[in-house]
């Protein structure tokens, strides 16, 4: 069956990567991307529709594509050029609302896939170690981004209820890392000296960027109803991740960590979403990914440790100057191969 797919946020890393993969699939007859900026040049047969998902105009554009699947990649985790922190809320919440309104008018539609976030579970010390999908909304949400995600999930849930004919998938992504991913988190992990919170060592599940795209592609082919956690198997502590990455941690007492990160955050490009990052770097977060494996049918290629190791390999290849991490030097002294 020929498929027609529309991707929002096509100029973002996530949207473009998905389009690139779908272009290779002959079963997909038509791909369109919606964004305010043009997508990267490498895309070949993706039709670019210049539109702002926040504008009501979308309700006229979307039905004309005769799409059967809409993939919403337009939820932003951090500011981008031309998208300052203060408009993130608008893009994430109002944008999703407008998109859903446009979906209602698209009669050919069969499935809506939203690339959401596991931020809906918050980052708390005393949280369950592995959140299952039914545990959303059990903790008090503390950051703007967490509340935005919760709000748009609620709209999406209502939308799904009113349109039982449509298959509505909410993918709750753990943060990603990848050698080519230009995210604040990856930049943070690539700092020569990495500030960490004194006395805390969060348990992290960072998803490899290839798996992140893989899961999204899988959801286009096999949309399932309801929320699905997207995260790697296992977990890794920040301290161990930094050792594998050969980065030296700089423990900073909690009261100084926030001001320090605020200064650094602007340089990392985290902007308003710094709050989330800081909570994540204190308490971490784990999700149960059994639904992703069993229902969605996606098998990640990297586990939590593997994703970091891959990042380390890439960082090693790009390194300028000698690697002076104690682990490397001591390893060389007693002759352990890397």
């Amino acid at each position, binding site marked *: 069956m020929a498929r027609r797919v529309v991707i929002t946020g096509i100029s973002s890393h996530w949207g473009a990567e998905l389009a690139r993969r779908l272009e290779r699939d002959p079963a997909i007859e038509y791909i369109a991307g919606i964004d305010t900026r043009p997508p990267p040049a490498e895309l070949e047969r993706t039709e670019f529709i210049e539109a702002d998902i926040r504008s009501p105009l979308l309700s006229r554009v979307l039905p004309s594509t005769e799409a059967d699947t809409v993939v919403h990649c337009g939820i932003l985790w951090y500011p981008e050029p031309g998208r300052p922190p203060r408009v993130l809320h608008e893009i994430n919440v109002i944008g999703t609302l407008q998109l859903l309104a446009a979906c209602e008018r698209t009669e050919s539609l069969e499935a809506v896939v939203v690339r959401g976030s596991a931020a809906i579970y918050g980052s*708390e*010390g*005393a*949280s*369950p*170690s*592995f959140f*299952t999908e039914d*545990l959303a909304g059990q903790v008090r949400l503390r950051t703007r981004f967490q509340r935005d995600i919760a709000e748009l999930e609620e709209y999406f849930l209502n939308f799904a209820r009113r349109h039982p004919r449509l298959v509505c998938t909410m993918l709750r992504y753990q943060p990603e890392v990848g050698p080519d991913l230009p995210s604040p988190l990856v930049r943070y992990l690539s700092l020569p000296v990495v500030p960490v*919170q*004194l*006395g*805390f*060592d969060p*348990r992290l599940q960072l998803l490899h960027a290839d798996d992140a795209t893989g899961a999204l592609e899988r959801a286009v082919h096999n949309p399932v109803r309801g929320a699905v956690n997207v995260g790697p*198997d*296992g*977990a*890794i*502590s920040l301290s*161990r*991740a*930094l*050792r*594998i*990455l*050969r980065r030296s941690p700089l423990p900073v007492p*909690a009261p100084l960590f926030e001001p320090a990160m605020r200064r650094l955050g602007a340089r990392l490009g985290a902007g308003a979403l710094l709050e989330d990052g800081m909570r994540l770097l204190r*308490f971490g977060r*784990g999700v*149960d990914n059994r639904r992703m494996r069993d229902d969605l049918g996606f098998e990640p290629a990297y586990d*939590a440790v593997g994703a970091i190791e891959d990042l380390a390999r890439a960082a090693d290849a790009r390194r300028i100057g000698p690697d002076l991490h*104690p*682990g*490397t030097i*001591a*390893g*060389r*002294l*007693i*002759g*352990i191969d890397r």
Partner: protein
Amino acid sequence: MSRAGEQPAPEAIADFLRDVRVGVERGMDPLAAAQAASESLPERLRGALETVVRRLRGEYHEDEWGFDEQFAEAVFPIFEFLYRVWWRVEVEGVRNVPSHGRALLVANHAGSLFPFDATMMTMAVMKEHPLPRWPRFLVLDWAFVLPYISTFIRRCGGVPASRHNATRLLEEDELVMVFPEGVKGTGKSFADRYRVQRFGRGGFVEVALRTRSPIIPVAVVGSEEIYPKLGESQAMARAVGAPFVPITPTFPWLGPLGLIPLPSRWRIEFCEPVDISEHPPEAAEDRRVVFDISERVRETIQEKLYENLVKRGSVFL
């Protein structure tokens, strides 16, 4: 494994440094000289060195819960000292703990300032059981927002107390320790020692029924006397956000010295498993069944506590 021919560590290190110097004097570059010299280190020293270096490189195992076996082994001697010398723990019925497969150890909870009962039960299983294994334990949520302590507990196998965590651990066929009294147990005053408090809503029974895990009641004697709680300071509790801050004969009067637990004698008895196999998993929704089992476990622990108190005799000697 003959250690007789092996040099003591300081001499071996001196030899190593001399080898490096000789190497460099002969025109080798320092790195190659160090590598060559490290080859001739005694095997045991080299092994230890390699472990340390591998740790620096993040090349060690940590499970998905954050349990770090190497770390737990490294701090083992501290708890071994407490177990053998300080509290002279005697253990009974350790064979009631299954050597494989899931099981829920349910114990009384005490020791106001730092409840050490989980660590001593771990020691008992690790040291006395013919097939030792690391138990996992559920810890009061509050501990997981604390710096250092949260990290330490997690690396030793503790997880935040929640039925989701307990269920998942049991599904993974782990040995799980729970303390259903929770803060009511640790926070009771010294006058109420060895009186098992209410068992919450019986959540542990629901988890055991759902996962079809045997329940093994455990009675721990000795934990009540390590920090006898005479009163509590509400002002301090508010200041640090703790559920309670106890006042003991030594804390906070002696400052950090007040954190040293008293050397009471301990006895730990692992009781016969409570058979719940007659109930189907759905019985977890039947409040009557849940309370019934919960009460049975509580009574067993209470009975065994009195028995072991008599067996122990004198508290400190």
